[in-house]
C-alpha cells in the first residue's frame, strides 16, 4: 500500500504540485433486501481503487484509478498534477497547504466479522425480522427488510508525511411496513445502524425493528393529517437530531466560508441561540455509525463543540478550510469512496441534554404538537432555509397527548430557529442516518434529548 501511495505522491510532486494526497480503498459490502418473505435483492460488491489529489497555489485537481500498480499510480499522479497546473492560472485566491502530520495504523476488530457469517445465516436473520410485521397484525400488506454490511480498509497518505491506515465495519438493518385498511394505506420505517461486527445485529433493538415498524404503520391507520399553522413543537430525540443536522450542522461546514455560502458567515464567536443550548459533532463516540479515528485526509478526529452555551464556537474543517480560516483542523473531511473528493462533513451530530423532564415539558405545553421520528430533511445554507418532516406525531392539548398525526413538515430559518428553543430535555438518544452533500452519501448519526421550539410553521393538508 505504502509504495503505491508514495509512487503517486512522488509523481505529483515531481510534476510540480506543492501538495498531493492519496486514498487507497478496499471495501466489501453485502446488501440483502427482502420483501414479503422473498429475497428481492442480494448484492455483493467490491470497491477497489485509489483517489489522488494534486494542489498548486490554490488550485486543486482530482483523479481516480483502479489500476493499483506502481506504474498505474505514477501515471495518475502525473496526470492529476498536470491538471492542477493547468487550473492554477485561473485561480484567484492563492494559498499554501499545510497541516499536522499523523502516522498510525488503526485495527478495528469486531467480535464477529461479516466475512465469518455465511450468506445463509444473514438471510435467516433478515427472514426473522421480515416475518415480524406480518405476525404483528393482519392489516400489514407489505414488508420490506433491508440488511447491509460494509467492511472498509483505507490507506491515506499525503506529501506532508501523513500515513494512516484505517479499518471500519458498519452494519445496518431497516424495516418498512405498509398497512392497509379499506382504502387507507400507511407506511412506517425503522432503522438501526452502528459501528461494529455482526454481533451488534444480535442485540435486542435491531432484532425487534420489524415489530416496531409494524406498530407505527398500524397506529398510523387511525391518524389524521396535521392541520397547517404556526405551533409550539416538541421534537423527540430522533427528530431533534435531524433538526440539529439540517437546521444547523450543514451551515457549520467550513467549506461554506471561503465560498460565502452560509448565513452563519459572520456569526463565529457570536450568540446564535439561548445560553442553555449546546450542539456538538462528535466522531469519537465509541461504536457509533458516524465514528472514525482519522478522517479521509488522515487528520485525527476530535469532538467539535459547534455551539457552546448558545455561541457558535467551532466549525467542521478539512485541512484546506482550517488553513484558509486560520483555525485548528479537527478531522471532518469525509468522502463517500475513493472515487470522491473529501468534503467537510458531519459525523455524530447532537444536541447536548438539558434539565427539563420530558413529562413536564409536555405538561407545560398548552397547545402544540409532539413530533417523532423522521422521513427526510434538507437545507440550503446559502438562503438560510431548512425543512424536515416527522413521520408521525401527536397533538398536545392543554399539556396532554392526544390525536396521532402524520407526515408533519417543519420549515424554518437557520438564523432564528435556535433562539426559539426554550426547553431542552434531560433524556438522550441517537439514530442512524445517511447524509448527502454534492452527490456524496456518507453514514452518520444524529440525536439529542426531547426539545421544544416555540411557534414554528408546521405544514398540513
Amino acid at each position, binding site marked *: 500500500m505504502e509504495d503505491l501511495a508514495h509512487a503517486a505522491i512522488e509523481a505529483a510532486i515531481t510534476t510540480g504540485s506543492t501538495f498531493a494526497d492519496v486514498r487507497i480503498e478496499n471495501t466489501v459490502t453485502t446488501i440483502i433486501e427482502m420483501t414479503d418473505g422473498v429475497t428481492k435483492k442480494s448484492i455483493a*460488491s467490491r470497491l477497489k481503487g485509489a483517489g489522488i489529489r494534486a494542489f498548486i497555489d490554490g488550485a486543486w485537481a482530482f483523479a481516480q484509478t483502479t489500476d493499483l500498480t506502481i506504474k498505474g499510480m505514477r501515471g495518475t499522479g502525473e496526470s492529476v498534477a498536470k491538471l492542477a497546473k493547468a487550473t492554477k492560472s485561473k485561480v484567484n485566491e492563492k494559498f499554501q497547504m499545510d497541516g499536522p502530520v499523523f502516522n498510525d495504523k488503526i485495527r478495528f476488530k469486531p467480535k464477529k466479522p461479516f466475512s465469518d457469517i455465511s*450468506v445463509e445465516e444473514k438471510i435467516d436473520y433478515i427472514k426473522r425480522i421480515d416475518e415480524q410485521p406480518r405476525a404483528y397484525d393482519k392489516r400489514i400488506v407489505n414488508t420490506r427488510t433491508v440488511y447491509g454490511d460494509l467492511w472498509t480498509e483505507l490507506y491515506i497518505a499525503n506529501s506532508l508525511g501523513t500515513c494512516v491506515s484505517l479499518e471500519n465495519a458498519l452494519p445496518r438493518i431497516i424495516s418498512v411496513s405498509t398497512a392497509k385498511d379499506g382504502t387507507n394505506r400507511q407506511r412506517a420505517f425503522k432503522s438501526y445502524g452502528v459501528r461494529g461486527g455482526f454481533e451488534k445485529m444480535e442485540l435486542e433493538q435491531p432484532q425487534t425493528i420489524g415489530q416496531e415498524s409494524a406498530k407505527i404503520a398500524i397506529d398510523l391507520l387511525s391518524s389524521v393529517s396535521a392541520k397547517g*399553522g404556526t405551533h409550539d413543537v416538541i421534537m423527540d430525540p430522533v427528530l431533534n437530531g435531524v433538526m440539529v443536522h439540517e437546521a444547523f450542522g450543514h451551515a457549520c461546514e467550513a467549506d461554506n466560508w471561503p465560498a460565502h455560502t452560509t448565513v452563519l458567515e459572520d456569526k463565529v464567536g457570536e450568540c446564535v441561540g439561548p445560553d442553555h443550548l449546546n450542539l456538538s459533532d462528535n466522531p469519537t463516540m465509541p461504536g457509533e455509525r458516524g465514528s472514525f479515528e482519522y478522517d479521509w485526509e488522515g487528520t485525527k478526529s476530535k469532538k467539535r463543540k459547534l455551539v457552546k452555551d448558545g455561541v457558535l464556537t467551532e466549525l467542521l474543517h478539512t485541512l484546506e478550510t482550517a488553513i484558509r480560516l486560520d483555525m485548528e483542523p479537527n478531522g471532518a473531511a469525509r468522502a463517500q469512496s475513493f472515487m470522491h473528493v473529501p468534503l467537510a462533513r458531519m459525523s455524530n451530530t447532537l444536541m447536548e441534554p438539558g434539565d427539563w423532564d420530558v413529562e413536564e415539558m409536555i405538561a407545560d405545553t398548552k397547545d402544540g404538537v409532539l413530533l417523532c421520528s423522521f422521513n427526510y430533511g434538507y437545507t*440550503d445554507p*446559502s438562503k438560510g432555509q431548512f425543512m424536515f418532516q416527522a413521520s408521525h406525531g401527536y397533538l398536545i392539548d392543554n399539556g396532554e397527548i392526544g390525536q396521532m398525526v402524520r*407526515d408533519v*413538515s417543519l420549515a424554518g430559518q437557520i438564523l432564528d430557529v435556535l433562539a426559539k428553543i426554550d426547553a431542552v430535555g434531560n433524556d438522550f438518544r441517537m439514530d442512524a442516518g445517511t447524509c448527502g452533500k454534492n452527490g456524496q452519501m456518507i453514514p452518520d448519526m444524529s440525536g439529542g434529548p426531547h426539545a421544544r421550539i416555540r411557534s414554528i410553521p408546521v405544514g398540513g393538508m
Partner: protein
Amino acid sequence: MKEELLGIAERAVKKAEGFGADQVEVYTSSSRTFSIEVENNSIKSASEQRDAGCGIRSVVGKKIGFAYVTTVQEDDLLEAAEMSVRLAKASLPDPDFVTLPSFDGAYPEVKGLYDQEIVDLDSEEVADIIIRAVDAARFRLEGMNVAVEAKVSSSTGTKVIVNSLGINGSADTTSIWMYTEPIIKEDGEQTSSYEVQLSRNLKEIHPEWIGKASAENTLSNLGAKIIEGGELPVVLAPFAVDTILGGGFAGAVNAEEVQYGRSYIADALGEEVSAQHLRIVDDGIMESGIGSRSFDAEGHPSQRTEILDNGVLKSLLHNSYTANKDNIESTGNASRAGYSGVPSISSSNFIVAPGKGTLDDLISEVGKGVLCRFTGDRPNMTTGDLSAMIMEGSYFENGEIKHPLRNTLIGINMRDLLKRVEMVGADTRVAFSIISPSVVIRSAQVTSG
C-alpha cells in the same frame, strides 16, 4: 471500447454459467467525466474521473444474486461472477420471477444521444464555458456583494448489456450539465438561486443565458416575506413540477410499488385519476432526450408509453419482472445506477404535454395565489400526502408578482393535486427528470409563519 466491453461481458456470462447459474446478465460500462468547479467567482478545482466496472446478475432456478466490482480486471470479474452465483444459491426463491428478458430484433434508433463535440472538448474549452456563465451572472449583478458558485461536468461513456438469452446491446452516449448559483448579500439579507441546463449536445448549453438567468432568479428572491395562509391557488413552475410530478407521480406509477400496494395510486389503472387536460407520456426514444436510450437497463427495447390521457391512468412503468408478474409486455423502464445497481424501475423522459400561455399569462389568469419555483419535497408515496416547503417562490395578487416567500409550505394530497390541475402552460423546459411547462393547481393549503 465497445468491443472490449462486449468481450468482457460475454466472458463474464460464461464464468457465471460455469459456477452454476441457469441465466446470467452482465452490465458493464466505462466512462470519462471531466468537471470544473467554481467557488466565489473563480475556478477552484478540476477533476477527471475514469470509471469502469461490471455488474453480474445470476439466476439459479427462481433465486437471484447480484455482484459488482469497480474494475474490469479478470480476477475481479471472476470473484464477482462467483459471488453472484453464491448469493443466488443462498437466496430464497421468488415465485413471481419468470425469466430474464430476451430480445432478438433490432433496437429502435434514437438520434442525438452522442455528440462528438463533447468527446473532443478539452479542459481549456470547459474552463471557458464555465467562466462565460459566471461572468454573465456577475455582470447582471454588478455593484452587488456577490459570490458565484458553479459547476460544469461533461461525460462520455459506453455501456454494454449481455445476457445468456441473447440480449446483446451496446451504446455510446455523451452528456453535459452546468449550473451557476449566485449568492448575494444586500442590506443584511442573504439569498441565492440557480439556473441549470443539461443536454446530450454541447450546442444546447448556453453559458451566458445560464449565468444571466441565475442572477435574475437570485434577485427575485430578495425581500422574502411570509403571508397569511389559507386555501390558495398554486402555480408550479417546471422545476417544482419536476420534484412533485417527476418524483412524486412517476414514482407512484412504478409497477413494483403498485404491485406491492405501496403506492397511493394502487388499484387505479384504467380509472380517471386526474383533470382531463393533464396529459403525460413517458418517452424513452425521443431525439436527444436526457432519458432516451435504444434499450432499457435490462436490454429490453425502449418505447413511448402513454401514462395519463383524458384524465385516465393508461399504463404503469414496467421492467421485465413486473411485466411478467402482470402477464403483459414490459414498457422498457428498467433502470439502474450504472454497473453498481440491480435493475429497478424509473421514468425515461417523463413529458407533460404543453397547454397554453407563458408563466406570466398563467399568473395573470389566476389572479391571486402562490408561485412555487422550487421545492425539494416529494409526497409520501403510500398516502400521497404532500407537505412541501416553497424553497423559492412568490406571492402574487391581481395577476402580478408581489414578493418572494419565506417559511411557507403547501399541503395537498397527490390524488387531489392531480384532479385540481386547472391549467397547463406552454413554457416547456427540461427540468432534470421531467420535460414540462408550468402547471396550475386550483387550490392547496398554504401555511406561512
